[in-house]
């Protein structure tokens, strides 16, 4: 077996141009997912009438089905819905105007939202009840108490899970090749089949994914160090 080392190197260089696509999908899905997840978690914690049943159904459905299925459902289902609505209301917007990557953003945000709602929920529940009571006792509104006291502490608690989820999303984003978005993985397939050097091209892709994963872990460690100053000398 001979491996073309220089080809791995040149593949690596070529793959760099696909990094922004992968990072954009990961970042957008995680940020939107976190927003969705936070809202869903609050709806479920406060048992908002009606909405909390819908929220629970959303979470079990999404967690009970593969991420690839979500992508395919959105890819084939969303255009039908959008075009039907456009016809109904006479909009000029057509589903063909949606860029391919848009489907990835939407579907992965929905996926991430369900998983992150559980992460956020456990984070919120891990904050001692006495904290929000103390916030109320000094006259804060629920919004102030959540925003200034509960969320900052919950965030510190859920940071490790959030980091894991981000890494899962980074790796899961490889599914976008099914809707013809060229991310790192898709690009490596293109390079591989164009040159008939599959192993080398995939090694190059693996190296980049590994590097990005390490980067996320480093960033997490840095943030963790910053926000956890208050735990110095504490037991928990």
């Amino acid at each position, binding site marked *: 077996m001979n491996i073309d080392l220089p080809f791995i190197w040149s593949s690596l260089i070529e793959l760099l141009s696909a990094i922004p696509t992968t990072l954009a999908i990961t970042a957008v899905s995680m940020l939107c997912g976190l927003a969705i997840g936070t809202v869903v978690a609050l709806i479920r914690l406060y048992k908002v009438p009606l909405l909390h049943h819908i929220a629970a159904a959303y979470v079990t459905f999404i967690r009970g089905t593969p991420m690839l299925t979500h992508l395919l459902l959105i890819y084939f289902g969303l255009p039908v819905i959008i075009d039907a609505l456009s016809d109904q209301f006479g909009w000029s917007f057509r589903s063909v105007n949606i860029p391919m990557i848009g489907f990835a953003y939407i579907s992965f945000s929905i996926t991430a939202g369900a998983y992150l709602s559980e992460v956020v929920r456990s984070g919120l529940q891990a904050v*001692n009840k*006495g*904290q929000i*009571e*103390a*916030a*109320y*006792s*000094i*006259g*804060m*509104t629920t919004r*102030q108490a959540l925003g*200034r*006291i509960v969320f*900052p*502490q919950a965030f*510190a608690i859920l940071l490790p899970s959030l980091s894991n989820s981000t890494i899962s999303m980074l790796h899961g984003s490889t599914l976008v090749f099914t809707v013809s978005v060229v991310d790192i993985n898709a690009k490596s397939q293109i390079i591989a089949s164009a040159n008939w050097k599959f192993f080398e091209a995939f090694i190059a892709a693996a190296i980049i994914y590994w590097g990005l994963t390490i980067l996320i872990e480093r960033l997490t460690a840095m943030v963790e160090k910053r*926000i956890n*100053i*208050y*735990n*110095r*000398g*504490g*037991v928990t």
Partner: protein
Amino acid sequence: MIKLTQIKKSFGRHQVLKGIDLTVEKGQVVAILGPSGSGKTTLLRCMNYLERPSEGEITIDEFTLNCRRPSKSDIHELRKKSAMVFQQYNLFRHKTALENVMEGLVIVQKVPKEQARVRSIELLEKVGLGSKLDSYPSQLSGGQQQRVGIARALALNPKVILFDEPTSSLDPELVGEVLSVIRKIAKEGITMIIVTHEMGFAQEVAGHVIFIDDGVIVERGTPNELFGSPKEERTKQFLKRFTPDGVYSI
């Protein structure tokens, strides 16, 4: 100043408060005594609306709230009248001692930051923590944390401060420092309601003592009346545990 009318509270089928009537005058220090599970904490929490009474009326500083259908803003209004010192301190873990005290001033009362800072430092110095401004709760002893908790409550200039067994999670050698802070602020004429098991302390600082058992006020009076010559059998039984011969001695 404070008036509770027929406060009732049930958890499920279990009625914990069975109609509490209580009036507290401005500047009064009231101690609440009673056996474990009698509803002392629940009563205090109802006044701050951390617990929602099933029935009754709460008036603090001319603001009356009927517990049947209070609006969110009424609850908020009522809460702003009082401040609470918790048994478990409940300091904001991610904030320093100084930030804990400033929080209510800046966020709730919208006092300019610099002014809030000056006032908070003053208060922390008053409770003897001038050197711990930048410490996080996890870096403070229980007694120090509770003194920050008291400063946090004082900062808001509340009409009444509610203390729920402020010293009962403390090691015995730390109890004194917290009691002396409370003693100090009692002398300043701040209205206080204190749930405590420290009989000697209650006798000393309180102008009024209330004995609660099983969700009702069994007996009330001055410390001398209640400790010296309790009328009710249940009060006598309870006090006996603290003074073996059944006679309160000064």
